[in-house]
């Protein structure tokens, strides 16, 4: 009885080991199963989903106009102090003083891509871009100004 159990044990052990070896052997011979992505080479074919949260950007149209009113909702919504809105007063065509943004400073190094500023923005002025290669040689390059120089607010955005 003891001898029988002993051999049964040995054989079932060897069988379980061979099962594992069969599986790795299968993958060794079936190179189609390889899932490695060759990242820098496949940059052109790399499709990031459109919701991917890469960094905050402010889209401008062809007339160099954006939709930001400078309401600071994003600044208030941000948990890390990533966004700083610097406003100025502009005089519009009717001679009235109007608040507008001077600079929208965005600290990428502080950003956690939580999307709260995008949700908070009432005029959809900022969106998430799908870029993800953010490494730079100097930390100061991570502080970005989102509005283009000389850009203006779009007509009809309040």
């Amino acid at each position, binding site marked *: 009885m003891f001898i029988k159990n002993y051999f049964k044990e040995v054989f079932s052990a060897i069988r379980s080991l061979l099962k594992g*070896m069969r599986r790795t052997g299968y993958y060794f011979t079936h190179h189609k199963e390889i899932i490695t992505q060759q990242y820098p080479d496949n940059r052109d074919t790399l499709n990031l989903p459109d919701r991917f949260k890469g960094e905050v950007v402010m889209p401008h149209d062809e007339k160099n106009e954006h939709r930001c009113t400078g309401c600071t909702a994003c600044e208030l919504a941000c948990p890390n102090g990533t966004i700083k809105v610097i406003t100025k007063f502009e005089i519009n065509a009717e001679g009235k003083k109007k608040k507008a943004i001077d600079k929208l400073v965005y600290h990428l190094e502080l950003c956690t891509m939580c999307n709260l500023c995008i949700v908070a923005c009432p005029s959809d002025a900022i969106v998430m871009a799908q870029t993800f290669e953010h490494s730079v040689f100097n930390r100061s390059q991570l502080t970005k100004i989102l509005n283009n120089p000389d850009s203006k607010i779009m007509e009809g955005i309040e």
Partner: protein
Amino acid sequence: MWSLANITNSIHEALNNQFSAGWALFFEMLMAGIAVISLFAILGLVLVLMERKVSAWMQIRLGPNRVGPKGMLQSFADTLKLLVKEGLTPGGADKFLFNFAPVLAIIVAMLLMAPIAFAKDFQLWNLNIGVLYVSAISSVSVISILMAGWASNNKYSLMGAMRSGAQIVSYELSAGLAILSVVVLTGSLSLNDIILSQQNGWWIFKGHLPVLIAFVLFMIAVTAETNRAPFDLAEAESELTAGFHTEYSGMKFALFFLAEYVNVFIVCCIGATLFLGGWMPFHIGNWQQFNHIMDYIPSSIWFMGKTFFLIFLIMWFRWTFPRLRIDQLLTLEWKYLLPIGMINLLVVAAMAIGGWHF
């Protein structure tokens, strides 16, 4: 039969004509030394690349594929990296032993090369006690590991070395018994005689089940002896960080690394020699036509093919199995492998006396 003996003999004669006998021997030894060292370098490069590719394919990865065509030059890049790295010595280390341990590991590996027949008539030293020599010298490798573990002044290293000591000493027994079963069948300790005895078929086929069992025991024991997974307790990455070579860096680490791979190569050479006929082509009994066709394949290719098949087997083990625990490792040896090996040896001895093998 195609032979390398002509080349070696002509070199021997040329040297003897040119110089006195002493100088000729000196030059021959020099050449042999250079050959062994360059074989070491090549083996290191090839085996590291092979391991990385094998592991990658089993792990559904691509493996190295950037340096050179298909990543062939990856190991050169690795070697270069290790060469230019600083070899640190920890503060409380025993400096002499710490630096000597990797060298000893390499020396042991080199000594083991001597009796191995790489092809027909291509052997450094046709020793009449080759098998005994191999099992004696391979035990010395444990000293280098103990030395490294002790001298590092690191608890992880020390534990790794102690584990390794217990492990190698135990598994020597199984390996020895497995080797003995072939020696019993052949009646000779010389590796050359063992190869020649497989003229009409390799032992693994001639010797029925007992030799097959001996072969399995041998493979398990040498996997343990070379500290390869699933018996890599001396290194046990997740437990002891890197075991006995935790504190080694740069070229000193590379020497341990190289010694490990060369040891794997050598034990696979021995395995191929004992069980798979060494450089002997695949022969079936007295079927002359078939044997002649097989003889056209050069003996060195036969030898390397068998050896690399065994190396692949060991790598296959490594990338499939989890590691054993230290007490299980010793249980496996003393409760399973050793009794099986002993009974098996008795059966083999009976078989040899009765002449029941082919």
